[in-house]
């Protein structure tokens, strides 16, 4: 809980110092992290004190920590006090003519430094695959009582929560599509939209239980991962056909009936790839953890 509060304060800091994109992302990540922490905490042993921790070791750790913290704090204070010349003028100048978007942070992510982002979503996809490998078939002994010896509540899913969450899901997905579409010009983009969808889907697990939700979810998460990576890398390769370097983006105005003049950039497909990968990663990691509890439950019923 405390960590989540720290995360919220960090996100407020980003709002104050003109980084709306970061604040949105931090906020969405916080929701995922707290769910993850709670699921993990359920399985780890409950004993509070560890007798082998000596006072000397605690003192040594404290000194090390104070040294590191004081050092980094001092360095950042010194850094904040010195004037500097930004190298970002190029990005600010070329964002609209070169990338076709007014949100410079998003244009840097999907266009100027698209190769970085491609590498990053590959790392995320690896995490999701690791979730499969590490947790697949794993059965843990769930504690029957909590730390004070009370039994867990038998009432599984509050009716109010499960009824609220069903209409909320389409709403949350609409919001995430909206945030994805506006990402090129105002704060938003594939990362935030993906996190919002992911957390909304995980809320369904929480509200309705795994037995209800699991059959409704995509069967083969690795295929979705591959689809996302293929979208992102494919749009990069497509620019090769036009004789431009890898991941060059194009943009232009397309008149659509009913909606009017819509500005489209090929970077949006790249962002869509990012979106798919992020949704799948959040979903895979948290639902693998959830399925672990289902297996544990079955085992304890069989015993």
């Amino acid at each position, binding site marked *: 809980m405390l960590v989540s509060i720290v995360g919220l304060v960090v996100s407020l800091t980003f709002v104050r110092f003109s980084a709306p994109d*970061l604040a949105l992302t931090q906020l969405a990540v916080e929701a995922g992290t707290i769910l993850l922490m709670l699921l993990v905490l359920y399985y780890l042993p409950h004993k509070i004190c560890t007798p*082998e921790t000596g006072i000397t070791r605690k003192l040594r750790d404290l000194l090390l920590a104070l040294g590191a913290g004081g050092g980094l704090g001092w360095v*950042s204070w010194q850094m904040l006090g010195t004037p500097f010349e930004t190298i970002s003028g190029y990005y600010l100048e070329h964002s*609209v003519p070169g990338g076709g978007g007014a949100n410079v942070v998003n244009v840097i992510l999907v266009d100027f430094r698209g190769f970085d982002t491609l590498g990053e979503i590959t790392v995320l996809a690896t995490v999701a695959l690791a979730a499969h490998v590490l947790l697949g078939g794993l059965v843990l002994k769930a504690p029957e009582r909590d730390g004070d010896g009370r039994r867990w509540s038998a009432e599984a899913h509050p009716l109010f929560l499960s009824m609220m969450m069903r209409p909320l899901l389409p709403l949350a997905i609409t919001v995430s599509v909206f945030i994805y579409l506006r990402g090129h010009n105002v*704060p938003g983009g594939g990362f935030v939209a993906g996190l919002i969808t992911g957390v909304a889907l995980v809320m369904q697990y929480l509200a309705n239980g795994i037995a209800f939700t699991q059959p409704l979810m995509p069967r083969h998460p690795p295929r979705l991962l591959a689809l996302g990576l293929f979208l992102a890398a494919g749009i990069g390769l497509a620019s090769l056909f036009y004789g431009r370097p890898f991941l060059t983006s194009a943009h232009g105005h397309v008149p659509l009936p009913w909606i009017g003049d819509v500005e489209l950039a090929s970077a949006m497909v790249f962002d869509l790839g990012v979106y798919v990968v992020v949704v799948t*990663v959040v979903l895979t990691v948290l639902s693998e953890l959830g399925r672990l509890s289902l297996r544990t439950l079955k085992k304890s019923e069989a015993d």
Partner: protein
Amino acid sequence: MELLLALAIGLLTTCGVYLVLRERTFPVILGLTLLSYAVNLFLFASGRLSIDAPPLIAAGARYTDPLPQALILTAIVIGFGMTAYLAMLALRALSESGDDHVDARQEDERP
């Protein structure tokens, strides 16, 4: 304001390093999360602090430095991936070794 942010970075690093040095897995996960907050804020500070200057192109507006922001955005998401991976490793280690200590204890010490 600058002093406050520097103090916050220092405090987060102190807590993070202390928790990483604990011997059970959950504090280590928490500590790495705190450390990644500290590092993100440090990177953010390297773009200097400016108020009411979001990097959205508009006529006659002031802009803050967008480059650190783009780097941190990816760092936040990677940080979530790393936390998730560590948590899964902790669970796997718990099932393999039967306890949640970071350093493997000697056979004869085990109860």
